[in-house]
């Protein structure tokens, strides 16, 4: 009788432990619907083609050249920023760090932060900024490059970049986070200043990474 009781207690305890573990690793995603393809579509040789990110070439915080080949078979998140940004960037970076923590160790997701301050944000400065944010080497590239190219390609990345003397810090940009899939299609985005939108975005990333 007594051992029966003890074994029941053990079973109850293990069930409790198990549920505790599963809640801790619980997914954020609440929907299994496939993510849409964003940015419109055009007809190419009689086939409908969704918007795709064009070829690009940047230089990251380690001085390495970063092109689309660095993102082969990977999903990635793109944001536009600059290191001396006094307004929205710290908040967006805080949310990106939250995303990076959530997907820590996942080799199928990378991050690309493009600086729009090509004068001041050189490789050395980007390395300093990455170190200050305690970003580990590997999955997160903070990049600079040719000014005209960065401003022109912004549109394809669903971003806005403008030099503006009257804007705080001298630049106008947005705090958007954009999700690109392994086939260069944009699949989701969110306002990187809005914690609840970022939560939904994390769910979208989970769904994308689950896609075959």
């Amino acid at each position: 009788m007594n051992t029966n009781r003890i074994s029941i207690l053990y079973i109850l305890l293990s069930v409790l432990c198990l549920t505790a573990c599963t809640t801790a690793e619980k997914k954020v995603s609440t929907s299994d619907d496939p993510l849409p393809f964003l940015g419109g579509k055009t007809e190419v040789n009689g086939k409908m083609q969704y918007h795709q990110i064009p070829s690009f070439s940047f230089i990251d915080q380690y001085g390495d050249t970063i092109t689309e080949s660095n993102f082969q078979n990977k999903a990635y998140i793109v944001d536009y920023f600059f290191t001396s940004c006094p307004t929205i960037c710290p908040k967006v970076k805080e949310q990106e760090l939250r995303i990076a923590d959530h997907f820590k160790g996942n080799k199928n997701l990378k991050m690309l932060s493009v600086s729009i301050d090509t004068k001041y944000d050189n490789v050395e400065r980007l390395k300093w900024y990455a170190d200050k944010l305690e970003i580990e080497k590997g999955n997160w590239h903070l990049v600079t490059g040719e000014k005209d190219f960065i401003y022109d390609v912004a549109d394809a990345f669903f971003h806005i970049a403008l030099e503006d003397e009257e804007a705080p810090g001298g630049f106008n940009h947005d705090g958007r986070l954009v999700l690109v899939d392994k086939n260069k299609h944009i699949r989701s985005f969110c306002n990187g200043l809005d914690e609840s939108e970022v939560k939904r975005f994390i769910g979208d990333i989970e769904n994308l990474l689950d896609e075959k």
Partner: protein
Amino acid sequence: MKNSYLIFISMLLITLSCATQEYSQGRELYNYYCSSCHLESGQGLRSLYPPLAKSDYLAKYNETLPCIIRKGLEGQIIVNGKDYDMPMPAMPKISAFEITNIMNYINHNFGNDLPFVKFVDVKAKLEECK
């Protein structure tokens, strides 16, 4: 008679609801001027922006804080054992009244229990700033 009773109750309720929103003016001003970098809960951002929450630097330099807020800060500082060197921009137009409100909000939130500051003292301090 019944009306005045109602007015009394509503006034009491308004006073109570205000009392639970401690330093709400300071909070509004903090969110406008400071939270971009120090973030909404005063936690700062990694090694880039120092925390205000339970910050030893904030406690130690509380008296010179009016000058720091108005004139900004440059150079390396150590907060809770960590180095920070991102410059803090000056805010030449911020008033003594706004600084008082912000300081009282910061000093009594984010887990801080620092002195209450008075407008006259903040104003006097601002005249001494270099």
